[in-house]
């Protein structure tokens, strides 16, 4: 077993476990922490796919910013283990789990059936991407996708204004 393959399996198993913990933990703070771990592991998986810059961005944006916000809000509310953490009603719960399972089966089955024809070659990339894709990413972002980039700038402005307005609604700045 080569190191790369070992790394993939190691990361994949850890990712699935921590992903399941997000859903199964009854304490929301633990859910948030395991989601942060999932994000870090997905960043590591990005590295195995040669997207090193994106892996760094994943760490900074998701693990370092978005999840910090989630954890902070949970601590602010100080939510204890919930009595009704999961959906009530056995039938509807079983129905939901079943539908999710069917979806998983369909997707994985279709991937398995088409694995042979997927991209013709499924183990080696068609065009070998050089080790450093960061500069190419910058070039493509600032030529072909410039409009989307500027639009995202405007979106972020709107989010900054809107989120602050929402958070400060009802006049006061302190939680009651």
């Amino acid at each position, binding site marked *: 077993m080569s190191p790369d393959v070992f790394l*993939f399996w190691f990361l994949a198993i850890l990712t699935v476990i921590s*992903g399941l913990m*997000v859903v199964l933990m009854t304490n929301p703070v633990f859910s948030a922490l395991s989601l942060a771990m999932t994000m870090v592991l997905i960043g590591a998986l990005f590295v195995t796919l040669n997207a090193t810059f994106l892996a760094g961005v*994943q760490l900074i944006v998701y693990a370092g910013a978005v999840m910090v916000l989630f954890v902070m809000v949970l601590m602010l509310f100080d939510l204890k283990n919930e009595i009704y953490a999961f*959906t009530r009603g056995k039938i509807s719960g079983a129905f939901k789990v079943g539908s999710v399972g069917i979806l998983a089966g369909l997707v994985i089955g279709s991937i398995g059936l088409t694995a042979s024809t997927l991209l013709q070659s499924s183990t080696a990339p068609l065009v070998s991407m050089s080790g450093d894709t960061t500069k190419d990413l910058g070039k493509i972002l600032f030529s072909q996708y410039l409009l989307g980039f500027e639009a995202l700038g405007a979106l972020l402005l709107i989010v900054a204004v809107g989120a602050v307005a929402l958070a400060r609604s009802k006049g006061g700045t302190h939680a009651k």
Partner: protein
Amino acid sequence: MRARKVAHMPSNFILEVGLPHYLVLSSLLFVTGMAGVLLRRNAIVMMMSIELMLNAVNLSFVAFSRYLGLLEGQVMVFFVMTIAAAEAAVGLALVVAIFKRFKEVNIRFFEHLKG
């Protein structure tokens, strides 16, 4: 057709890692996130599950980008990350506004907000 299958199918599922592996992993994570959205009652945990689904999609974008040799997938991931972060910021702002008013984050409670 059969000849190509022999030539290109990963000879060993465990020893050779390729695109299908990443896609299966991504779909597993997506389904986990979806189960979270359907089963959990806490609005914040539901939003976290949505983040998990978005991450799963990002993983498949990057995998396709790597195995197709196209960088567009990575640009897309960049955009998805931004949108996801924006969604988290606004969504949590809404939840905090509701919590401040009613002291409740259970999703059942939000049904009472109907006009």
